[in-house]
């Protein structure tokens, strides 16, 4: 399986994603933001970081970068497009995903392990995943998802809410909402479910020596589903 990770100036989880993808069998390539074309890929990843410094709204400049047109074309033709953290912010800024990511409710950067519940398995990302509640990691200042009531209704009706924050046992409540996000949303799909944006970083949780290895479930499953 071939994957591409896009590097924007200020991306800083690009290497971590490269390591993770390769570990689980992807042939990964790094693609520079100023390129116009993306090599043939089964999966494109927009990694975490601070693209262009995020001095304007997070992800907004990246959403206007040279490479973005090819990314949109790829996604519109059904290609798998994954955005993690800053990648998720870029996806909402391009309009490929609805809603926005606001500053965390407590106005602080937050870095910690969280549990998320996989809500929808009818997609290439989570189909057949062996564990329903994953321990992943968040590290962001703007992960507070918000959208209009209509958009939320539509997300719910189309089963587009991919993952939600919860506790170890899958209980979703305000107590386990780390950043004030709407309906504990940690990640969403587009309607066709080929685009996934999520705040948690599965690539930081890929072996036992790290504080969780649940990222393994995500990547192992993803490459299986793509085969």
């Amino acid at each position, binding site marked *: 399986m071939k994957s591409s990770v896009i590097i924007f100036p200020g991306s800083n989880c690009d*290497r971590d994603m490269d390591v993770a993808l390769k570990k689980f069998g992807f042939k990964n390539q790094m693609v520079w933001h100023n390129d116009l074309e993306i090599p043939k890929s089964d999966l494109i990843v927009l990694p975490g970081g601070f693209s262009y*410094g995020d001095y304007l709204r997070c992800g907004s400049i990246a959403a206007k970068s040279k490479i973005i047109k090819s990314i949109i074309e790829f996604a519109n033709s059904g290609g798998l497009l994954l955005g993690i953290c800053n990648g998720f912010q870029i996806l909402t800024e391009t309009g490929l995903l609805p809603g926005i990511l606001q500053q965390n409710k407590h106005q602080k*950067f937050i870095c910690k392990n969280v549990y998320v519940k996989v809500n929808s398995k009818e997609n290439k990302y989570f189909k057949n995943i062996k564990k329903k509640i994953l321990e992943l990691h968040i590290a962001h200042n703007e992960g507070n998802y918000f959208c209009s009531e209509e958009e939320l209704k539509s997300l719910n009706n189309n089963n587009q809410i991919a993952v939600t924050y919860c506790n170890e046992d899958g209980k979703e409540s305000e107590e386990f909402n780390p950043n004030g996000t709407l309906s504990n949303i940690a990640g969403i799909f587009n309607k066709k479910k080929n685009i996934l944006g999520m705040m948690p970083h599965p690539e930081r949780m890929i072996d036992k020596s790290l504080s969780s290895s649940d990222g393994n479930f995500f990547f192992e499953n993803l490459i299986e589903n793509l085969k």
Partner: protein
Amino acid sequence: MEINEKIAIEHGLKKEEFSKICDLLKRTPNLTELGIFSAMWNEHCSYKSSRVHLKKLNTKGKKVIQGPGENAGIIDIEDDDAIVFKIESHNHPSFIEPYQGAATGVGGIMRDVFTMGARPIANLNSIHFGSPQHPKTKNLLRGVVKGIGGYGNCMGIPTIGGQTSFDESYNGNILVNAMTLGLVNKNKIFYSKAAGINKPVIYVGSKTGRDGIHGASMASAIFDDKIEEKKPTVQVGDPFTEKLLLEACLELMAGKSIISIQDMGAAGLTSSSIEMASKGNLGIELNLNKVPCREEKMTPYEIMLSESQERMLIVLENGKESEAKKIFDKWNLDFAVIGKTTDSKKIELFFDNNKVAEIPIDILAENAPVYDRKWKKTKLPQKIKFNKDDFKKLKITQVLKKILALPNISSKEWIWQQYDHTVMGDTIQKPGSDSGVVRVHGTDKAVATSVDSSAVYCYAHPITGGKQVVCESWRNLISCGSKPIAITNCLNFGNPEKEKNMGEFVECVEGINEASKFLDYPIVSGNVSFYNETKDKGIKPTPAIGGVGLIKDYKKMITMDLKNNKNLILVIGKTEGHIDQSAFAINILNEKKGPPPEINLFNEKNNGETVLKLIEVGLVKSAHDVSLGGIITAVSKMAIKGKKGFKLNKLKVLVNKFDYYFGEDQGRYIIEIESKNLSKVQKILNDNSVHYDDIGLVTEKDVIVDKEPILHIDDLIESNKNWLTNYMEK
């Protein structure tokens, strides 16, 4: 403008220093030249008060590749890998403008590390604030933490450890010390020493603005009521540009075009250009019209003294300019050839076709003033005779809960949750542990690191305090199963022109040095920050020690959380029950006098090495060093982390139980072992003549001490967890 003594004094120079300048130059300097002298001869850049003492430091060792004198120290961690590391202060700017001050402190130290060709892999910090009740403390703390996070998080370098303390002596002078570790191939290290004449001198990075002019001089002065006016001397950080600069520099360094490279830190273009020329025994010629400027009509004086951040100076091989420029263009950074190396041994500056400065380099560097200032010894205070009858009113568990909730002991999670500590995917021990640990990417090795200081001990008796900090650093590294290799120090002190403060400096350094020698734990880099004084009130002497150790197989790393029910808890090292200067004496008994605990370097070394042996043969399940709050605080912290309880045995020793549990004798560790392994552990301890006490065992959730009411571990978690969050959020 005619330069006279008055203007020189306004530049922070002393009268005698100004006449020395005129003598050496054989004329009066012009304004630009005076600015250059003031930048090079201030305390911050010249180390004029500390140099005679720093020279005595133990800086050599088998693993040392580079000691002090470069941008950072370097140690060998085998297989061609080396760690570049250093700690640096950014105290004065952080007090004036906490966010930018702290942020640029982090940015500056990272530049020191990647200037040498290393990719930063971990950040740490040691931050000290005034009393929690002081009206400024909360905002300063909030700003500093945001600044550290803002910079490090954006750079994508994990912040894996640190230390935070509160003490009223920092009310008017907070301390912000930032430390960075980087990884480099030991055959691909870059130095600042220029070589060869007529080589192009290149400016890369951000443009030069008017920020930070005289920053280094400001850091060499005491504060008064007018500090708000000094805000413009604080630099403004741009971590995004630094991230680009990091990637661009590392890309350029992969080739062979760099002769030498130096970041523009304190005193900006002045100190970087002079340092490169001085080390290479060369001259340097700069055309200041070529310097990329952010603001209009900047004068040579401003250009030379700006401390705008995210800039580097590079001496390139001839003919490599276009190749190098391509890389900086790719990363959207300024790149300008601004001068060349010469054989004149002078710094010569041109602006609008005029020569605006000409100074022999040796006058600025080697001939900078050196002072052997007067200093006063601090006598060892008399031991306090505590009335043990007073203790009878106290309950151990109640005291313990209070101690766990003290500002200096309670959990600092509120702080480190704001730092990205997992980016780069190699953090295997997070903040809130004895040491932070990161793997050496793609290998079985890991590097452990911690930063420590004990101002209370250093204030009570500087020599003992100096020794103690080094030992505590060593213990923190041992506790996670790493072999300590070397340290970096950040020496934060008051006004060196006062004999008491100078004495604190001299004696702390003596203590640090003695411990460093005995433990074969050399000092490879560091920084001195004097004049931490506001309106005659100086800080407690606060040397911060950053240690680095190596774990050869990261799977053998030890963490501090208690693991399993019924495992045994042992105290390694002898407990005499020293409570003078302990958290117990100061906070519970309200007794602030007395000597700090004594340091026995022989036991320190022997105990540490023996614990490491136990870890290496796999007998240790968890370990933690005993420090502030004594044995019971240490065990509690292990229990809190592991969400386990513990039961303490009836004391088999003769000292009073409060002395025993809360005493802060040095050289001790708590280890958890499986009961079936007790005899094996005893044999190793006995063979190495290490004293130990078998003090109790791990329970599921109950905390059982004597016949006192049983506590649940959640009670201790509650005590320890909430102080800082409540303080900051409510």
